[in-house]
């Protein structure tokens, strides 16, 4: 007997989301139990069960959120307000163009 993590899809197009876990002797019964605990009310469109022992986890914050500046990777790292204002003045435009890109 070992824990199996249960993932479920609630609505079409949505990703599989972790729902909880069941303890079972093998994948066949794990799936049966997952249906009972996480879908007996018809609340799931799809189910996955995965042996907990097969899951590889990362939660090291040095790897997931490294300390040095990486703002070049994010949209918020590009602030163009001043430069755009100057460009509009140079070219005699009064309106801003819409959109991020």
């Amino acid at each position, binding site marked *: *007997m070992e824990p199996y993590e249960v993932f479920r899809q609630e609505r079409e197009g949505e990703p599989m989301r972790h729902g*909880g876990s069941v303890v079972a002797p093998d994948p066949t019964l794990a799936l049966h139990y997952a249906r009972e605990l996480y879908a007996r009310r018809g609340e799931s469109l799809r189910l996955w069960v995965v042996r907990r022992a097969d899951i590889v986890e990362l939660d090291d914050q040095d790897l997931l959120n490294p300390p040095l500046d990486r703002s070049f990777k994010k949209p918020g790292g590009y602030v163009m307000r001043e430069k755009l204002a100057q460009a509009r003045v140079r070219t005699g435009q009064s309106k801003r163009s819409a959109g991020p890109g």
Partner: protein
Amino acid sequence: MTDPLALDPVLPEGERSRLPFNRDRPHDERYRAFEEHVLAGGKVEAGDWMPEEYRTSVLRFVEMHANSELMGVLPERDWIMRAPTLRRKLALTAKIQDEVGHAQLLYRVAEDLGKTREAMIEDLLAGRTKFHNVFHYPTRTWADIGVIAWLVDAAAIVAQQALRDSSYAPYARTMKKICWEESVHIMHGRDVVVTLAAGTPEQRAMVQEALDRWWPPLMQMHGPRSDRDKDRDLHWRIKAKTSEELRQEFLGIYVPRIRELGLSLPDPELRLKPESGAWLYTEPDWAELRSVVTGHGPASAARIGFRREQRDATSWVRATILGPAAAA
């Protein structure tokens, strides 16, 4: 020891946790950082570092809750076979199934904190851990089923909704699922009570009698008033409301709903103080509560005995196919 339906002030010193609520002890930085995180509303997952005190508190809290779901099945089980219509039988079976399901969810949360299911059940059967007072009482008539499904569940839900934001995230997530599932039970219970209250004189008398019997344990259910500052489970944000807050909430919603059916409540002091919006009531018998949850309730021994019998009758399955090292 505190539990979801707070008992801490009532239990004698020796029964409280061996780990004192250690405000006055020197702590390392890690403990402080953890405490700050939790007090600021931060969440904790199963694999995170946590102070032993926090782990112990959460485990006890969740274990008590799990035990209560498991024992809560027993008063109602007998009536599955006696349900008077197909629809009632299906509704009752589904409700009890949900309770077993909730026990599974809660024992899973506790297992991931390091205690095995077998150990928890053994502690329960040995009386080392506890379950809610209401499940130590016998059920005598079909009307009891309505009262339990409606009002006992309502009182539990009031407590459970306040737990959906618990600092211990696996528990909080479980509570959200449980609350969602519980909303149907209350309707089934209320329907049984409403039907009986509107039925024959014998049915009305049956439900009034059941209500008279269940009201005192219901009033005790949330536990005595506790001191906010001394409540460790509140400190660690495992729970968010005090016993009295929960009891007031329960009374506020359900007393009017009971009375509108033409049913009376057996407490002459029960009334709403208009100025404060608080409910006044006869002080529940806390000595009775303590006696009951320590295993001296009218049905405590029978229920524990039954659980033990059933566990033993199926132990051959857990020793083999559903065992620790089963070959498929």
